[in-house]
């Protein structure tokens, strides 16, 4: 549904995008993940026909965003990074304006506006000027406005920044609902948890390039590897535990202790399960009783930090 190939964008001297590749199948959610200034917003703006790329192609629903912007606009909804709400109108009027511009018949427009206000928990404040809304209410109104035309493709630039955990969960639920109805979603986020929860695929962007892409599971497995953690029951035995883990997992970065937990990265290529069994056996032999032991995938946070740090060094 979204195909991006070799996208380049320069702002005078800054190279904002340096050959972005992206493919988002219809009905899936793709998360663009990246630090500040990575180029996320620039990608979204080009896809939403607001900005022209200097090189490369971008297609939405099969239409080229540069040569066929009107066809693309028929398909998309956009929630930009900064609220696009008219503060001098009420929430309901904001939505009604978009409905009018979308040329919905009057009755249909009324119905959709009421439905969206309700769905976003804004029914009670729909008659109030948006100026009096809290940041979270504004953001929800903004997302609601992008849904008015029932777009096939939805671009959400940091849709949950500034929302409290409850509203964030609401927006997540909404996005999942949309995807269930067949909408394709491209969202940008700085919250790894958000990408992990929502996205079918994640593209990690840094300095205008995609440095990793795949499912959340693939990314975690590919980069962070697995982590072995042990927590002895008696804090006094932490050091002994660390000795054992270090011996089995090998030297290097392994054998870190954080308070009463010992953790070690399982080296690539070694069998995590066998290692786990070996550590457990050694601990028993040494008479250390274990409170908690296990192997888990590195968190997306770890992956993200590992990736962007690597870029920094390279």
């Amino acid at each position, binding site marked *: 549904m979204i195909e991006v190939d070799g996208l380049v964008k320069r702002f005078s001297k800054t190279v904002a995008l340096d050959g972005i590749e992206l493919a988002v199948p219809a009905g899936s959610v793709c998360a663009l993940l990246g630090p500040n200034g990575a180029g996320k917003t620039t990608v979204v703006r080009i896809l939403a026909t607001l900005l022209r790329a200097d090189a490369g192609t971008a297609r939405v629903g099969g239409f080229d965003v540069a040569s066929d912007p009107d066809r693309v606009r028929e398909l998309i909804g956009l929630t930009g990074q900064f609220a*696009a709400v008219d503060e*001098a*109108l009420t929430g309901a009027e904001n939505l009604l304006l978009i409905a*009018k511009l*979308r*040329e919905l018949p009057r009755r249909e427009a009324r119905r959709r506006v009421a439905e969206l206000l309700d769905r976003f928990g804004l029914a009670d404040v729909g008659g109030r*000027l948006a100026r009096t809304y809290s940041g979270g209410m504004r953001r929800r109104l903004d997302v609601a*406005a992008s849904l008015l035309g029932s777009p096939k493709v939805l671009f959400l630039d940091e849709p949950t920044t500034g929302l409290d955990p409850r509203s964030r969960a609401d927006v997540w639920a909404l996005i999942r609902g949309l995807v269930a109805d067949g909408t394709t979603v491209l969202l940008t986020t700085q919250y790894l948890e958000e990408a992990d929860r929502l996205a079918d695929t994640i593209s990690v962007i840094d300095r205008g390039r995609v440095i990793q892409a795949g499912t959340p599971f693939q990314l975690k497995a590919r980069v962070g590897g697995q982590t072995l953690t042990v927590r002895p029951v008696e804090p006094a035995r932490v050091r002994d535990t660390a000795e054992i883990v270090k011996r089995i997992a090998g030297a290097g970065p392994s054998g870190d202790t954080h308070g009463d937990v010992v953790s070690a990265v399982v080296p690539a290529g070694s069998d995590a399960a066998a290692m786990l069994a070996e550590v457990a056996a050694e601990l028993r032999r040494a008479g250390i009783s274990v409170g908690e032991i296990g192997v888990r995938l590195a968190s997306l946070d770890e992956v993200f930090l590992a990736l962007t740090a690597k870029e920094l060094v390279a």
Partner: protein
Amino acid sequence: MSPARVVRHGAALAWRNLVKFRHTPDQLLDIMLMPVTFVVMFVFLFGNAVSGDWHAYLQFVIPGIAVQALMFVSLGTALSLNTDIRNGIYDRFRSMPIARSAPLIGHILGDSVKYVLAIVLVFALGLVLGFRIDAEAPAIAAAAGLMLAFAFAICWIATLIGVAARSAETVQALSLVLIFPLTFGSNIFVPTGKLPGWLQAWVKINPVTQLSDAIRGLLLGTPAYATIARSLLWTAGIVVVVAPLAVFTYRRRA
């Protein structure tokens, strides 16, 4: 895009301006503050000095102040358009399948109410103070038509400033740089003959002078066809030159 759709989109955006106006009626104050101040200041403070008789002066000054009021309303048009373009809301409009010219049409259409209101309010104030119209309906209609046509023309100047300026401060500065020579370098307040000689050359060709004279003539029963023609010529000239420039600048920016 079919013309019918362009009109629908423009109408939707004009609706937006009107709704805002309804929500914030204090905009009326913005429209009226300047004209009322000028009427009070000039009629009661300088009226006697300028023409020796404040009532005669009222007859002279009200049409000019109506023209000046239009100029100040246009400052509002430029500001709101400029704020809009720099706001995220324009990104949403531009990402939707609407005519690119719709936002401009919306602003001009939506603000037209304010221009009409400004004219009506200045004359209402004048009538309360003793301004007397001495003309038949056709002449009054012609005066109204001239003023509205001129409002349309300066609306385009405001649009150009609104789309070209990078900040609200620039809009203010540019507008005032334009408004002051046009209004104070005219015969709105002081008859051309009483102005310093070096200024008269400019005052005589100033479109604001032409329009003010044309309206005085029409409303006070002494229509002067030459000033009417020159005023129309100015109006048409401004529209022909500035409107394409504004649209061009807008397209490049948006």
